[in-house]
């Protein structure tokens, strides 16, 4: 058999196309007779649509025009609730809501026409932030502006306050973050009488788009085909919104009878599509004399924008992660997703967890400072251990040594020594500080999600004696093609090059669920292992399965088998491992099959003259189960950390009447090569029994830790509390000018650090 493939830094499967420019993204694809499509959008946050008129200046008879009245099926973007229309009909509920579609073969003509569509509105009062939504003076969604609420209740929080030695409160908030995948969204649709609707484009979840199109056109599923083209980054930003663009392109193709492509430019992509949910978290925590957590009372609120979209599930993940990796007998988490008249916020790497984990990891530092323990010692006294129950009552059954993980990370970062050095040199205008966060991320869908998805993968033999993977998992840079190929090759005992992977196309691949939630390696990879086991069994009947075979022997055997028996194809479907229980009604039980764990350490310099923060070094130690490809895994971690650095310090959306005002890369700043510190990436490898080759989830974890680690480091440097991201130089200068006296963990805090 081939030596091991898992654990090796094999080259990315599709790398040649990417380094030569040959890879085809949707903007690179042209079809004969193709029209270009554009979206005409609302210009107000909320109001009634009164009239649409087409001003003279272009030959309107040459244009294909689609409104809500043209929709053959249901005018909804089919997701969890069907509250979002594909095109507004009577009302608009946020700025940049799609109202009308135009198509023409000439892009210049389209640009002119776009300016000549005039929409009249009767404006209605709008709700523009979470507080206004909760005040309920204006109701914009349902009965109460609330998309979803959860309650986690462990023990009895209210019984503890009276006996607590200390009660520490804090409020933490995070703002919207734009994904800034470098490839803007785009879709190409064709409509033919035989195949009906075919859409290809930049997307994460082919079967989400498929469901949205069958609903929009009221077609049986075999009449809709969705194909993923090379996707230039997504980060959650191409999870739900592509259903809308696909629907729009398909409606224009349906009406015109010609292929239609819609590609957003950067400004439209930034202003109209989803962003990370803004959040606010309030913590009230009871601590004993000896620094043990007695009760955690947490209120977590997120702004979902105008329609519910994925907010209920983003809220769910944020809620479950809100108490962090701590053992605490009494925990209450009350969480709410509210409606505002902004474009819907959506999936973004971490999916609610970066928000609530930012809060809890800042709060842990606050508690430590307040009660006079070091941040590391306070955490050490309170970490979850194997056998403990999380906030939802999930018993940690896997080996877990958070004190050890944290210690290794801190030592590797030179934390203790640097703390001393920086304190000794604190007279300079350049203040240096160290901070860290210890946290976890649950892999796979929450609760019973994976059971409901019941994902399927298949393997098939090719004519040449290779094996091809058939699954709907998408490659968007994170390494799906490579990782799944490595897993299949390892399980089949053949070479990496002998495994092919079928591009995601709903006409060819089964539904393996969406490419989200850090589930690809762990959940879908495991299914590939199972299908591979079956493949080998079928190829050699059980009794003659050889102990050893060469890749060449495998291929010869496969060709022989297929020449006699026809194509060999095996499948595997997800079945929940025994002993997993989840109670959706009370939000109790096993929230995730497995958690990945990490400690991230940031070293910063704060310039007290300019207010600028520079991250000088970053150390990231994580336990993600077995690492399948060390180069790709480190790449995932480094990329996530730099997105997290942007979230912490740079990326600020400026809002004006529910609309992003700085929707350009000129004034929405993401990190460049000059902003990134050296990043030390370390792995602790503890194989996970139910993950492919022992792997757990990795993709989202690195988004969770940087913001709290960096803010904790800034607080350490200045002795002033900051509880909001992004933390801008203006915020720092403003607090410095108050002399730090009104800030929470005032100068004496620094003194308490051992």
């Amino acid at each position, binding site marked *: 058999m081939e030596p091991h493939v898992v654990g090796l830094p094999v080259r990315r499967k599709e790398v040649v196309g990417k380094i*030569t*420019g040959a890879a085809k993204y949707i903007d690179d694809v042209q079809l004969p007779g193709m029209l270009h499509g554009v979206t005409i959008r609302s210009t107000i946050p909320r109001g009634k649509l009164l009239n649409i008129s087409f001003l003279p200046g272009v030959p309107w008879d040459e244009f294909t025009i689609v409104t809500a009245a043209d929709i053959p099926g249901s005018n909804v973007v089919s997701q969890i609730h069907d509250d979002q229309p594909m095109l507004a009909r009577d009302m608009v509920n946020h700025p940049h809501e799609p109202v009308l579609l135009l198509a023409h073969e000439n892009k210049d003509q389209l640009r002119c026409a776009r300016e000549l569509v005039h929409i009249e509105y009767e404006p209605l009062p709008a709700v523009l932030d979470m507080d206004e939504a909760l005040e309920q003076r204006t109701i914009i969604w349902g009965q109460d502006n609330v998309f979803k609420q959860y309650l986690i209740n462990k023990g009895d929080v209210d019984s503890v306050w009276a006996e607590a030695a200390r009660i520490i409160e804090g409020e933490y908030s995070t703002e919207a973050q734009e994904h*800034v995948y*470098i490839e803007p969204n785009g879709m190409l649709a064709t409509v033919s009488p035989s195949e009906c609707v075919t859409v290809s484009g930049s997307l994460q979840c082919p079967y989400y788009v498929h469901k949205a199109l069958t609903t929009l056109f009221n077609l049986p599923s075999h009449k809709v085909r969705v194909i993923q083209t090379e996707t230039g980054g997504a980060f959650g930003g191409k999870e739900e919104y592509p259903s809308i663009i696909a629907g729009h392109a398909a409606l224009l193709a349906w009406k015109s009878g010609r292929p239609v492509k819609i590609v957003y430019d950067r400004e439209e992509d930034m202003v109209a599509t989803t962003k990370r949910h803004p959040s606010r978290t309030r913590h009230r925590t009871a601590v004993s004399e000896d620094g043990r957590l007695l009760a955690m009372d947490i209120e977590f609120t997120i702004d979902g924008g105008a329609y519910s979209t994925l907010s209920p599930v983003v809220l769910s993940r944020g809620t479950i992660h809100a108490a962090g990796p701590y053992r605490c007998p009494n925990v209450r988490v009350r969480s709410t997703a509210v409606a505002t008249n902004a474009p819907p916020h959506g999936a973004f790497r971490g999916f609610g967890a970066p928000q609530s984990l930012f809060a809890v990891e800042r709060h842990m530092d606050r508690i430590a400072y307040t009660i006079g323990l070091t941040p590391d010692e306070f955490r050490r006294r309170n970490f979850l251990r194997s056998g403990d129950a999380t906030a939802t009552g999930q018993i940690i059954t896997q080996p877990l040594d958070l004190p050890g993980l944290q210690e290794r990370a801190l030592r590797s970062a030179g934390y203790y020594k640097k703390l001393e050095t920086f304190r000794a040199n604190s007279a300079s205008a350049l203040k240096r500080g160290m901070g860290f966060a210890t946290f976890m991320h649950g892999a796979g869908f929450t609760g019973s999600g994976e059971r409901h998805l019941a994902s399927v993968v298949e393997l098939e033999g090719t004519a040449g004696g290779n094996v091809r993977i058939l699954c709907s998992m998408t490659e968007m840079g994170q390494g799906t093609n490579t990782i799944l190929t490595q897993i299949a090759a390892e399980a089949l005992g053949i070479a990496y090059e002998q495994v092919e992977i079928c591009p995601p196309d709903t006409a060819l691949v089964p539904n393996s669920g969406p490419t989200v939630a850090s589930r690809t390696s762990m959940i879908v990879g495991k299914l590939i292992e199972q299908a591979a086991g079956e493949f080998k069994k079928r190829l050699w009947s059980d009794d003659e399965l050889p102990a050893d075979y060469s890749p060449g022997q495998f291929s010869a055997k496969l060709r022989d088998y297929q020449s006699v028996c026809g194509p060999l194809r095996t499948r595997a479907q997800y079945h929940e491992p025994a002993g997993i229980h989840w109670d959706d009604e009370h939000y109790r039980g096993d929230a995730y099959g497995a958690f990945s764990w990490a400690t991230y350490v940031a070293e910063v310099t704060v310039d007290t003259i300019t207010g600028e923060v520079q991250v000088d070094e970053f150390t990231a130690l994580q336990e993600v189960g077995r690492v399948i490809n060390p*180069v790709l895994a480190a790449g995932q971690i*480094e990329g996530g*950390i730099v997105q997290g650095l942007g979230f912490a310090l740079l990326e600020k959306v400026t809002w004006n009447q529910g609309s992003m005002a700085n929707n350009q*890369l000129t004034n929405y700043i993401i990190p460049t*090569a000059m902003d990134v510190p050296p990043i030390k990436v370390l792995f602790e490898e503890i194989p996970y029994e139910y993950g492919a080759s022992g792997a757990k989830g990795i993709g989202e974890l690195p988004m969770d830790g940087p913001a709290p680690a960096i803010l904790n480091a800034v607080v350490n440097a200045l002795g002033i509390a900051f509880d909001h991201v992004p933390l801008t130089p203006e915020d720092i200068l403003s607090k410095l000018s108050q002399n730090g006296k009104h800030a929470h963990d005032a100068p004496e805090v620094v003194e308490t650090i051992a």
Partner: protein
Amino acid sequence: MKTSRLSLTINGARRTIETPPMKRLLDVLREDFQLTGTKEGCGEGECGACSVILDGVLVNSCLVPALHAAGANVRTIEGLSPGGSHPVQAAFARCGGAQCGICTPGMIMASVHLLERNPHPSRLEIQEALAGNLCRCTGYQKIIDAVQAASEGDEIADL
């Protein structure tokens, strides 16, 4: 729309087209010559996905009008190695410098431009040279590693 005759050299080959003079070089490359390896990320010269080398200067082709390229020598990603064997391409593949791939052609052109002028740059010089090219996937570490690895090979000096 009024057009002009435009002659230029692209990846070593002399080419002539009729084009509106203010058409973006990016669109000329992508639409008139089907050289779609040069990407559009922002259309305003911020992201560098459309980086090409024009008469030895690294430019954002979304900001260059076609007439500005008249008579010029333009190098795009397609002009390196179709099989990806140029030392910088090979280093990107080996070091994990490409993830989603959309910034990769521009990033590689910026790296080639740097290494041709400065065959052995420091890490800081690499960071400075790539600061006009945004990548949202890698966090830049593996890209910087790739450029450093390419600079350590012997081939670069001979380019």
